[in-house]
């Protein structure tokens, strides 16, 4: 580790006269860069917190999320119920805690689905160009303009409402942004000399695409996916708000906020706490994503 103010000079002395190599401290440097970004560290802490809460719900939640106690409806926050109770007397804190599971599940799976779809379609479009590119980009554009709510409604008709419905709705509409991202990266990288060099060694398209282009192109997609998880969680809440997502008694944050609107001014805690939980979660992912941009030195993360 170099002290600040110290001149960086030849760490190994005079150096091998024939063939010195540049010092590599790249991993260390990246780590230092990341930890220096305080907001990014906060983001990571939040994410770890979220995952922790989701996995340890059984131990953290003081009550069951579905146990109703009709005599204790709409109680304000108190010592027994830190976040109060909802319309069925269920403890809001426990429901918020268990709700994190749904958020994590939906966030990760839906983004995973859209990233895989997007990577596949986008890289083929970017690599082959021509009419394949035109066709796939048109499909991506059309998909992108589909409101996910409409898709969700359609899916409800087919497979019924629920978490899976939300995941599919998000996955089938949001892959387009990742496709566009990776397509742009591949368009830039496919003319790099090492691609041509590998081709001149006799490699086929598959090898070039998957072994050389994708690993180098994936940076911005990772960042977008991180922020995408936050996006998906908000979407789940939106669809849940409309009753299309997790069905009762599952404690999706969006559904909780939905059922609480009727009594917004009387018992606001039923909306405030799940809403706060969601805000903090999304903030965490966004901060982490922004820090990643800085650390990975990515120039372009625009999606549309």
């Amino acid at each position, binding site marked *: 580790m170099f002290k600040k103010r110290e001149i960086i000079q030849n760490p190994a002395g005079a150096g091998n006269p024939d*063939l010195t190599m540049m010092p590599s401290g790249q991993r260390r440097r990246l780590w230092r860069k990341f930890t220096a970004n305080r907001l990014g560290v906060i983001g990571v802490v939040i994410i770890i917190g979220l995952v922790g809460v989701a996995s340890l719900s059984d131990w953290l939640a003081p009550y069951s999320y579905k146990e109703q106690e009709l005599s204790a409806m709409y109680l304000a926050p108190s010592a027994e119920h830190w976040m109060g109770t909802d319309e069925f007397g269920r403890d809001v804190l426990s429901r918020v805690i268990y709700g994190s599971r749904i958020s994590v599940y939906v966030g990760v799976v839906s983004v995973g689905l859209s990233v895989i779809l997007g990577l596949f379609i986008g890289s083929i479009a970017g690599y082959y160009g021509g009419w394949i590119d035109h066709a796939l980009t048109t499909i991506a554009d059309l998909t992108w303009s589909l409101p996910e709510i409409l898709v969700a409604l359609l899916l409800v008709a087919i497979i019924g409402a629920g978490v899976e419905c939300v995941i599919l709705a998000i996955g089938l509409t949001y892959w387009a942004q990742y496709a566009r991202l990776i397509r742009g990266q591949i368009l830039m990288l496919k003319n790099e000399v090492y691609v041509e060099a590998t081709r001149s060694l006799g490699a086929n398209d598959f090898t070039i695409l998957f072994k050389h282009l994708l690993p180098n192109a994936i940076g911005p997609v990772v960042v977008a996916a991180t922020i995408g998880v936050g996006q998906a969680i908000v979407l789940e809440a939106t669809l849940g708000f409309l009753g299309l997502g997790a069905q009762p008694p599952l404690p999706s944050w969006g559904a909780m906020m939905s059922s609480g609107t009727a009594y917004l001014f009387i018992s606001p805690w039923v909306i405030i706490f799940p809403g706060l939980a969601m805000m903090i979660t999304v903030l965490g992912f966004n901060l982490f994503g922004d820090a990643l941009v800085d650390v990975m030195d990515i120039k372009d993360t625009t999606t549309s």
Partner: protein
Amino acid sequence: MSSLVRVQNLSKYFPVTAGLLHRLIGTIKAVDDVTLNIDRGEILGVVGESGCGKSTLARLILRLIEPTSGSIFFNNQNICQLDKLQLRQLRRRMQMVFQDPYSALDPRYSTFRSLAEIYKIQKVDIDYQELKDRIAKLLLTVGLKPEHSNVYPHQLSGGQKQRVVIARALALTPEFVILDEPTAALDVSVQAQVILLLQQLRDKFNLTYLFISHDLALVDYFCNRAVVMYLGRVVEILPANKVSSTPRHPYTKALADSVFVADPAARKETVPIEGEVPSPFDLPNGCVFEARCPYARNVCRETAPTLDEVGDGEYVACYFPLINPS
């Protein structure tokens, strides 16, 4: 016939389109009717300025891009007719060293992985230990050390990177190596190292080189013969050491006269030639050099001169060469 590579009437035209319906508005003749031979064991230089087509020619010979017309023979086999499998096998025998060592290596691959990849791509049946030995040996051959196999490109200097690129080209012991400006991106002191290395390797492995460069002095020093190109056409082929002393084509002379020698006693008093290389888009008929040629006459404007043999392995495309064939 001792020609390892024969190029006959090779052309590569790029259509230029405009508008929504992609109307053809002209062509760029990147390489136009090029004919040349490369003898086994020879170092053939290709010189020219921007737009002359030398890099396109290299890629055509390696069939990285498809020609518009003409043929290329490697060991008397027409490589334009090979199918995918045969082409991949051909790649074992002819390889390329690229211009920019800074981007010729995948930045995420260690040296070892970059070199090992070739064996994988070419499906060479080889066990891991033998692979390690071969790569260690390869590194030594190009002047690197075994510890360089575990590092990444960003940890190597420009010269070291280029050595890895050369090692990669030699991994499957090819017969013919195309060197596309292999030292252009390197410092002068390192350039000399790489040139000497290339000479050693040529002698050791009986290689044949096609050496592309814009540096006339380097071609003079390193090559046996030189091909001078201008706007996609070959204007002269002559022994490399005659480029500065007895060039036949006016362009070759202008080129040689424009090179500054690192010797104050050899200062040039006048500018050899005015103007710049024109755009290759929609060239007129006639000699490509006519517009800048101080000796041009009417016939030069009407039809392009053919490349005629004027000596053993020497050719010139000019109606009024500076030295008349005897």
